[in-house]
């Protein structure tokens, strides 16, 4: 559905996007994961046609023109792209009318958007009076007002309280279930892990690797780590897996459940046991030598 090949974009001496390629199938949720400044938003802006790439090509569902491509894409930008002087209703009406909706069809789409965002009872309040979470939900609803086939979500949860974040996740999962193709950029690995079918790890304008979440973890996450705080330091020469440092035992394993069962079978008493499974954070650390949220 979306085919991106060899995208390059520079701003002066800075190469913001460097030879980025990927392909997204219909109905897939594709995650672009990377720290701030990795080149995610620039890539998104080139896909929607706001920025012209220096090199490379983009094909969106076979659209023959930029305007035709835009009609099938809905974008929820990173910033709240709404008119705070307008009410929620006025914002929805305005953006819907840009796509040619009018009359009953317009009213039906606006009603749907208000219902979807849970703002029906605040529709006639000015956006400036909304909470951050409500503004985010309306931002998403405006992106969907013209019934796009592709939805681009650029860091949709930045600055959102946990309750609104959960509401947003539920909305996105609903859209995903309805078969919408979604491109999701984030620097929160748990979001990518929860929502995305396919994840591309980006840093310094490059895609470092791209796979399913499990595939990436398997390739770059390494083993799980079990850290056990023992009741008594083991006697010298005891046959324990892993490495021992005083009363702390550390085991790296691909099968943590089997290891824990083995410790139990050996009657090893411990105060605490911690299990660290590899995740996208670990993947990013392995690929770049840095943590995702260092930036």
């Amino acid at each position: 559905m979306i085919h991106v090949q060899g995208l390059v974009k520079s701003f002066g001496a800075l190469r913001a996007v460097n030879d980025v390629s990927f392909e997204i199938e219909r109905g897939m949720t594709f995650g672009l994961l990377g720290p701030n400044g990795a080149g995610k938003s620039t890539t998104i802006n080139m896909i929607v046609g706001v920025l012209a790439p220096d090199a490379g090509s983009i094909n969106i569902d076979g659209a023959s023109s930029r305007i035709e491509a835009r009609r099938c894409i809905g974008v929820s930008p990173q910033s709240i792209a709404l008119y705070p002087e307008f009410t929620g209703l006025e914002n929805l009406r305005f953006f819907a009318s840009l796509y040619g909706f009018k009359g009953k069809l317009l009213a039906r789409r606006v009603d749907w958007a208000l219902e979807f965002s849970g703002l029906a009872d605040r529709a006639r309040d000015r956006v400036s009076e909304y909470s951050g979470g409500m503004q985010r939900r309306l931002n998403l609803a405006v992106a969907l007002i013209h019934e796009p086939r592709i939805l681009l979500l650029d860091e949709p949860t930045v600055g959102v309280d946990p309750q609104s974040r959960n509401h947003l996740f539920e909305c996105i999962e609903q859209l995903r279930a309805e078969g919408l193709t979604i491109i999701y950029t984030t620097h929160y690995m748990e979001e990518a892990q929860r929502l995305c079918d396919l994840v591309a790890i980006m840093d310094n304008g490059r895609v470092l690797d791209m796979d399913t979440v499990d595939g990436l973890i398997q390739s770059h996450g390494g083993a799980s780590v079990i850290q056990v705080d023992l009741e008594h330091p083991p006697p010298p020469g005891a046959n324990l897996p892993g490495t021992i440092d005083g009363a702390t035992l550390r085991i790296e394993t691909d099968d943590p459940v089997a290891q824990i069962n083995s410790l139990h079978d050996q009657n090893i008493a411990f105060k605490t046991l911690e299990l660290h499974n590899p995740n996208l954070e670990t993947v990013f650390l392995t690929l770049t030598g840095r943590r995702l949220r260092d930036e």
Partner: protein
Amino acid sequence: MNNILTMAKKDLLLLWRDKFGVFWILLFPLMFALFFGSIFGGGNGGGSSGMDVAFVDLDNTEHSRRFITLLGEKDAIDLEQPPEGAPWTVETAKEAVLSGDAVAYVVLPEGFGGAGGMAMFTGNTPEVEVGVDPSRTAEKGFLEGLLMEASFRRLQDSFADPVSMRPDIAQMKQDVLADQDMGDQWRSTLMTFFDSLDTFAGMADEAIQTEEESGGDASEAPDMSPIKIRHEDVVKRSSGPLNAYEISFPQAIIWGIIGAAAGLAMMLVQEKTRGTWVRLRLGPHTTAQILASKGLSCFAACIITIVLLLFVGHLVLGVRVGSWIGLAMAVASSAACFTGLMMIFATLGKTEQAVAGWAWGGMMPMAMLGGGMVPLMMMPSWMQTMSNISPVKWAVYSMEGAIWRGFTLEKMLLPCFILLAIGLAGFLFGVVVLSRREG
């Protein structure tokens, strides 16, 4: 085209919801017009001022002075004072009309006061010369009417005081007898009339004395008015401003459209800083169409501003419109000019503060130089020449041309063409620069 209209409508609604913006676009200009209008006009409340008339009194008698005083007491006439205190001569009075200091001049010839205003009975009717610009037909007729009214008033005064009329009657009888050119029959008729008049005056004298001796009121004489005057409203035409608001409103309009253009330039940048620009660009239209909508909203905002201010000026404060077609040309070309300027200023900064600084900082000197603060007509000639470089001058000039300068449509073309050229150049510059920035 629909999207251009939708986006322009949205911008106008946003502008209207910005209370601070509305103050600068409508309320401040209105306050400006009222304040400076009342200063320039001495607070005449917008009512018409009197017609300045220079009276040349060659007769210089009590009757002629009384005649001038009678006219001067009328609201419709202001007695123009002669320069340096010397009495008016025909030459200086003519010069006053030519230079626009007076609307008209009136010459009262020698012998004007003879026969107490009844010289018409002796065939020696004084000939009053009235000098008015030929284009001022209304003033000419109005002034003639006032002169006739005052003449009859003088006659009425004579009949109201018959005793004082008797020496004049004796003088007129002598003049009639001395006139060799007069036919015998006409002389006989007039002598009979004057004898009857003298008899009437004598009887009136006796009646007054009798009334006074019996303790009655001698002033209760019957109304002897020779004619009745019916007053007609006369709309004055002039080549100068009728009232000070005709000067202050074009200036105020400039401040209104500067406010509108600055507000929309800031709004364009605001779209970018708040992210709605990206959303607009993602819509099914081109960047050029978005910029066209910005131009259209600025043009419409300027038109609305001008029309609303002129509406108040015309209906409430008596600002006339000399030429409605000329005014439409001035309004449209001024709005186009400031739309172009808006586009230029929108390219000069990347933040609202920067654009606001450029817009107000750029347009303020233009307004100062172009007659937005000091009226063009009050500027020294060197400054009037310099003001040609300011678009504000051409906007003010075109509006004044349509309001009170009496420009023909042909004469309106130059300022309107200059304004349109600036507007078009500015708009194209803005579109090219902004489009390039968008890649």
